[in-house]
């Protein structure tokens, strides 16, 4: 007893009774990588092992530079396709699928109680399904491909309790930015985060994914939500295998407990150049923008596109507006429900599912002095490819509204 969720996962995996502070060497259930699989395959070959130990645990999803913007990216993709064939990797998703975290979840790899790692910092996203999922480095992925296992330190857990009914125009993104602003970008460094409270209980899986995704921006190793009927409904007919839901004991020891009331949250904006540079929208209202970006692994799901379409319906955008559905499935549902037509009519550009401009590798690059208001998860200097440009972060609602007015605008004022 008295164990946290992460202590239980690592105890199960290691076959020992481990607590926070222990170091264990264990076998993850899945290891995800994306366009960086090309570089990882190079490292893997240097180890001197010819075959991946557990190819069925390997998932590769191409999303960062899709379709290839330049010859070097095309060569990367080609090397990955060749490697996938050579190693007989079945869980391979080529450039026509979407963003890795969305695809991984849609395809049912993200399941309660599983230990999942990925060579991408936002691998924390699968915590929304009750998994222990953490970002790791490329060499670590190569090591798992070769040996099936990796070293982990068992982290302490911070509990974040969120209660209250979400006010109008407040989304999970506003809550995430608010919490990060309060606890700081290292508020959960090297810790597990466990979300709870009645607001979380009422959230759908896609809504919880926003919080678990943004847990990376608190420095967290994972962002776990205890699985419940919403989780089980989402996984029905989707889960790749059987799973066992794990929960922290009632008397588990948390290193810290933060309590928030969602009624205190106003539409939130992160100012340049850090995610914890929180502003209430009132303080940044009137900030002129040159580009609006709605999408990414944080806010590219159907709910996000619908929220944007509701704001933009029948109106025209004043600035360059880029929309990126998180996956082909999301894209198709957005077409069927008329969301895409609404967005196109307003003058927005629909980009193909993928990471797009978020990390400056592809599309939507800014010129010096320009400003993007984005639903992504990072606003670091140079992040979108230009070190003399600025990025503000907000929710799909506030970004869609700013696309229409050309400046950051409080949605509560417009209503």
């Amino acid at each position: 007893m008295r164990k946290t969720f992460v202590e239980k996962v690592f105890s199960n995996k290691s076959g020992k009774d481990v607590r926070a502070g222990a170091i264990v060497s264990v076998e993850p259930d899945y290891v995800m990588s994306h366009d960086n699989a090309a570089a990882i395959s190079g490292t893997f070959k240097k180890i001197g092992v010819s075959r991946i130990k557990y190819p069925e645990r390997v998932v590769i999803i191409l999303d960062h530079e899709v379709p290839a913007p330049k010859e070097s990216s095309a060569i990367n993709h080609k090397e990955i396709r060749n490697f996938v064939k050579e190693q007989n990797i079945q869980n391979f998703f080529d450039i026509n699928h979407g963003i890795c975290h969305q695809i991984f979840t849609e395809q049912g790899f993200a399941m309660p109680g599983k230990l999942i790692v990925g060579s991408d910092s936002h691998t924390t996203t699968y915590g929304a399904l009750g998994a222990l999922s953490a970002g790791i480095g490329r060499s670590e992925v190569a090591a798992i491909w070769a040996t099936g296992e990796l070293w982990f330190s068992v982290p302490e857990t911070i509990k974040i309790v969120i209660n209250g009914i979400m006010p109008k125009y407040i989304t999970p993104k506003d809550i995430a930015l608010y919490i990060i602003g309060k606890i700081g970008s290292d508020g959960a460094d090297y810790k597990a985060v466990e979300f709870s409270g009645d607001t979380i209980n009422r959230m759908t899986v896609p809504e919880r994914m926003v919080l678990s995704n943004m847990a990376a921006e608190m420095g967290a190793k994972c962002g776990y939500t205890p699985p419940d009927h919403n989780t089980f409904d989402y996984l029905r007919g989707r889960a790749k295998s059987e799973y066992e839901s794990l929960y922290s004991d009632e008397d588990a020891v948390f290193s810290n407990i933060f309590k928030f009331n969602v009624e205190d949250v106003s539409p939130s904006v992160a100012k340049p150049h850090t995610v914890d540079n929180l502003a209430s929208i009132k303080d940044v209202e009137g900030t002129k923008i040159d580009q609006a970006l709605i999408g990414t692994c944080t806010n590219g799901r159907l709910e996000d596109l619908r929220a944007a379409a509701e704001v933009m319906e029948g109106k025209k955008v004043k600035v360059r507006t880029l929309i990126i559905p998180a996956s082909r499935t999301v894209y198709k549902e957005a077409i069927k429900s008329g969301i895409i037509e609404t967005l196109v009519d307003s003058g927005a550009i629909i980009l193909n599912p993928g990471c797009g401009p978020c990390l400056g590798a592809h599309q939507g690059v800014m010129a010096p002095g320009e400003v993007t208001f984005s639903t992504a998860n990072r606003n670091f200097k140079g992040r979108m490819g230009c070190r003399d440009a600025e990025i503000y972060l907000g929710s799909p609602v506030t970004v869609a509204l700013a696309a229409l007015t050309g400046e950051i605008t409080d949605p509560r004022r417009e209503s």
Partner: protein
Amino acid sequence: MNGKFEGKVWKYGDNINTDVIFPGKYTYQKMEPEEMAKHALEDLDPEFVSKVSEGDILVAGKNFGMGSSREQAAIAIKYAGINVIIARSFSRIYFRNAINAGMPAIIAPDAVDAIKEGDKVIVDMENGKIITPKGEFTFPSYPATVMNILKKGGLINFIKANI
């Protein structure tokens, strides 16, 4: 990794993120470590790569390396000549990437406060000591798993030796 590092300090502030250490636009370009090193700290201090020398020591504030999981952010700094980083704290993935690249990431807040840019500093890994012009500071020794990876020069070499 031998037991002691001695070098000149380059000092930076808090929350240095991976985008300013190694810009995202290079992340999916295939590069050898020596090429990565040419972009180390490019969007934080464009002069860094021209002024750093082999064996220098990087000192930083809290949450060094926050952000992306990109391993190049550790490898670029290592191949630019830095043997060891001392910080108030490290972001989780950066800490792992540094260790796995065979570059010690040392958490020593008191030493960070005492050290100035340009200082000559000695880091004694075996005894957990940092010797600065303002005196000696201690840091907790690494767990055996981590120490073994560092001794082999990083995770990949460690696995090669144990497979």
